[in-house]
């Protein structure tokens, strides 16, 4: 990937589609949130996280060598890519609002 293509990719405004496993994760988060009546605090947290999702994902990537000691690597990377894609958070927020 040359520099200009990488730049285009980095600055692209096209939202990536929500993957199937991410949809399952979203459903799981919503069911747990409903079970514990934590919809509102979670919604507030997610609305606050939404604009900085890319930065949060970058921080998670930076912490990966240490996080790997406590969490399985594949699950951690999946969670990082989940946070990085703003469309996932949008879907989660919209589902919580319903």
């Amino acid at each position, binding site marked *: 990937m040359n520099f200009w293509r990488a730049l285009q990719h980095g*600055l692209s405004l096209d939202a990536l589609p929500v993957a199937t496993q991410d949809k399952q994760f979203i459903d799981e988060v919503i069911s747990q949130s409903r079970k514990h009546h934590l919809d509102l605090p979670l919604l507030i947290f997610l609305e606050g996280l939404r604009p900085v999702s890319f930065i949060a994902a970058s921080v998670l990537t930076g912490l990966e060598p*240490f996080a790997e000691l406590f969490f399985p690597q594949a699950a951690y990377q999946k969670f990082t890519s989940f946070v990085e894609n703003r469309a996932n958070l949008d879907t989660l927020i919209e589902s919580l609002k319903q």
Partner: protein
Amino acid sequence: MSHDPWVWIAAFLTLAIFSFLYKDNVFYKIAEHIFVGVSGAWLFATYFQSDIVEDMLMKSFPHFFHRTEAPNYITLGGGVIGLIILLRMVPGFSWLSRWGIAFVIGFQTGLQLFSAINAYILIQVRAALVSLFVPRNIGLTIRNWLQAGGTFTSLSYFYFSKEHKGAFGVLTRIGIWFLMISFGAAYGSTVMTRMSILIGRVYFLLSTWLGVVRA
């Protein structure tokens, strides 16, 4: 209006971040990528200077830095552990990096254990143990009842070994009210902090950049 190019860059980045309020756009993406890159570079430069140069190299080889103190080679141990952590990029030796990380985490845990227990557990427990009847002070008595009741009911909400039904269910329902009020207070505090930051940035734009408001 400012003639300093750095002020113009800061103003552009501030406006680029604010543009997200309208919708996601290229300027916001540029600003957040710059933020991540600059933060990473700043952290690297700061830790390189303070930890590797000042704490390790200057202490181990002071004569190279025109210093007169005696060499302290023990600081090289930190560098060795750092190199062991970097071995995760060498296939076949990547498992060794866990030893380095385990040492760092174990060391930090040991250092932080006492202060963390003191700050997060003992002080909290001590603050929760209040007298439920304060003679000739009805206000403080009510406050202490609220505090003790809030602590007990909030904790009972997180007790999942018993089904939240009946009298216990009522208790946990009161607990969630206390939790919601504390979440609301925390959120309000966060909003006020953000408002203060917003005022700072608007003041920067109007004063330092445009010069329409006098400092």
